[in-house]
């Protein structure tokens, strides 16, 4: 115990170097834990981009592809599916709710999704959170109403009542616009941190209406054109959609229903479990995440080597201190112990300060990160995994501390009581 006090007093005597050393360790520990936490949360948040949905059904293609276009609004569907296929499964007694979605149009680079009111009621993300409106209401019976995702509204400065024109296709710059049928903003959703924020939501009727006078991918000309007013009076029942999401009454039915859909005779369909597909997708991105972890491990190692260097450099100028301690009865192992304790104290302070930095950082950035990246970083105590990492760091510091300890041990045996000035 007295040795520890001596080690601290000696460190305090070299407080500037000690401070820098501990600070380097603190930064590296903070980085490691931050990467670890963001990694864990990113994985969790990625996995919760969509929740509560048991099956996603689309035209037969790959499961990752279906997930990408239906949930992440990346890429395109290879094919549409028929409305009656949707109806067939929407009416199935095992199905609690069904949300049809229709994609293919965009507005200034943001995807437009046609759906029904059920989307706002049943779609869930994160920890089973429902979509909420920050302004206005969901679209109603009029087909030319649009509900904006939070990011769309913010980036393009739209507010309730604004009119906007959708473009055909999903390219950022589209030459063909549905400018004869403008939409009115009736609602803006709250931020979710998911692709919902980057989506414009219209009704399936609206989607149908803007394409009602299109034939073979081009708009009708002259007399064939149908105005917005005319469209309102027409039957806007779609005949095809891009995909649909299903919520089931009982999870147990998930696999049997999935198999049924995949073997559906009248149309080739693909049903996927969002969780499984998300895992598949994550495993593709896992390499980058692991590289980040490895890099932060090396940063910690660098911090510890900095400590080793600082202690080793101090050894020579502290030979007198060692000789004095020897003359008052300290044995060589006391001297060695002193240096090990010094390394432990530096690493310990570094770890505690690193945790402090981490929590301060999380407290400061929590709101911003959640709002902009949809990542919720909890101000929680370190997890078992994080404690293990910290223990390993301390163990490494102990190992590193034994290098100067061994040198000082040899040195104090050789120097004895002679004081080198």
């Amino acid at each position, binding site marked *: 115990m*007295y040795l520890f006090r*001596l080690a601290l*007093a*000696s460190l*305090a*005597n070299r407080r500037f170097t000690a401070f820098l050393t501990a600070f380097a360790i603190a930064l590296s520990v903070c980085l490691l834990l931050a990467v670890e936490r963001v990694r864990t949360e990113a994985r969790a948040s990625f996995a919760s981009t969509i929740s509560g949905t048991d099956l996603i059904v689309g035209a037969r293609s790959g499961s990752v592809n279906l997930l990408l276009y239906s949930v992440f609004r990346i890429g395109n569907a290879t094919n549409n599916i028929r409305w009656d296929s949707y109806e067939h499964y929407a009416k199935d007694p095992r199905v609690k709710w069904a949300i049809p979605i229709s994609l293919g149009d965009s507005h200034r680079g943001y995807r437009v999704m046609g759906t029904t009111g059920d989307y706002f009621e049943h779609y869930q993300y994160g920890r089973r959170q429902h979509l909420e409106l920050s302004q206005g209401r969901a679209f109603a019976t009029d087909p030319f109403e649009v509900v904006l995702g939070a990011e769309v509204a913010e980036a393009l400065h739209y507010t309730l009542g604004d009119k906007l024109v959708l473009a055909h296709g999903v390219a950022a710059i589209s030459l063909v616009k549905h400018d004869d049928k403008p939409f009115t903003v009736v609602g803006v959703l709250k931020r979710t941190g998911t692709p919902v924020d980057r989506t414009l939501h219209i009704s399936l009727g609206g989607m149908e209406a803007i394409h009602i006078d299109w034939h073979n991918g081009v708009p009708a000309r002259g007399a064939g054109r149908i105005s917005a007013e005319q469209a309102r009076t027409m039957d806007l029942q779609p005949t095809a959609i891009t995909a649909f999401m299903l919520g089931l009454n009982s999870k147990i039915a998930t696999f049997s229903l999935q198999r049924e859909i995949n073997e559906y005779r009248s149309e080739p369909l693909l049903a996927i479990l969002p969780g499984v597909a998300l895992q598949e997708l994550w495993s593709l991105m896992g390499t980058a995440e692991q590289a980040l972890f490895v890099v932060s491990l090396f940063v910690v190692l660098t911090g510890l080597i900095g400590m080793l260097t600082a202690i080793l450099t101090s050894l020579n100028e502290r030979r*007198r*201190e060692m000789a*004095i*301690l*020897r*003359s*008052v*009865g*300290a*044995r*060589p192992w*006391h001297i060695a112990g002193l240096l090990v304790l010094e390394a432990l104290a530096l690493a310990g302070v570094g770890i505690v300060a690193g945790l402090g930095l981490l929590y301060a950082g999380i407290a400061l950035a929590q709101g911003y990160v959640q709002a902009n990246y949809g990542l919720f970083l909890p101000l929680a105590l370190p997890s078992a995994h994080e404690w293990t990492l910290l223990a390993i760091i301390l163990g490494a510091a102990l190992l590193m501390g034994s290098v100067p300890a061994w040198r000082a041990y040899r040195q104090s045996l050789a120097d*004895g*009581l*002679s*004081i080198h*000035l």
Partner: protein
Amino acid sequence: MGQPLIQLQDLVFAWPGQAPLLDVPAFQLDAGEAVFLKGPSGSGKTTLLGLLGGVTVPERGHIRLLGQDVAGLGQGARDRFRVDHTGYIFQQFNLLPFLSVRENVELPCRFSASRKTRAEQRHGSVAQAAQTLLAHLGLDDSALQARRADSLSIGQQQRVAAARALIGQPELVIADEPTSALDADTREAFISLLFAECRAAGASLLFVSHDQSLAPLFDRHLSLAELNRAAKPREV
């Protein structure tokens, strides 16, 4: 009193692969004695002190401290024996700069249980012992005792070192050029204080210095060059 405290007999020491540095046929220091040993640099003085402190062991011969053959003890036992029975004062920079004056004085009691016990028996507590010794050496001010050791003047630091050497009543105090950094006036004052305290504590004093002018102050003075047969040819 009068019994031998240090006894050297046919002591030979050489660093590996070198000619003998020390060859001392006989040397004795009695309990309660204050001996001046003249040792110019290069006379093997540091080596002799290392041998007396049990840091190094002789090639041949015996070193007895309090009748105990030090060379026969193991490394750990020698270390313990040294701190239990010997107090050291060095040339300068004797103190750990980052500890307070009082903590510096208390240091030997942290590493030697027997010196701690003796300090407690005599003064009640280690802190009290340190305070009393410092007061005797003219460092009465308790604010000064709480200051960092390196904030004191050299002369004050040497007195702190003397207090540290004497705490817990070791039988022997070895002083290695303790006055070389002091000016002439403080030098004699320091030595007489050291004498008085050694006498009060019943400790013998082995005072090693190259400064012959101090020799008359001691009970006995001798020269390492005379003691050490190995040193003679080199002085010619």
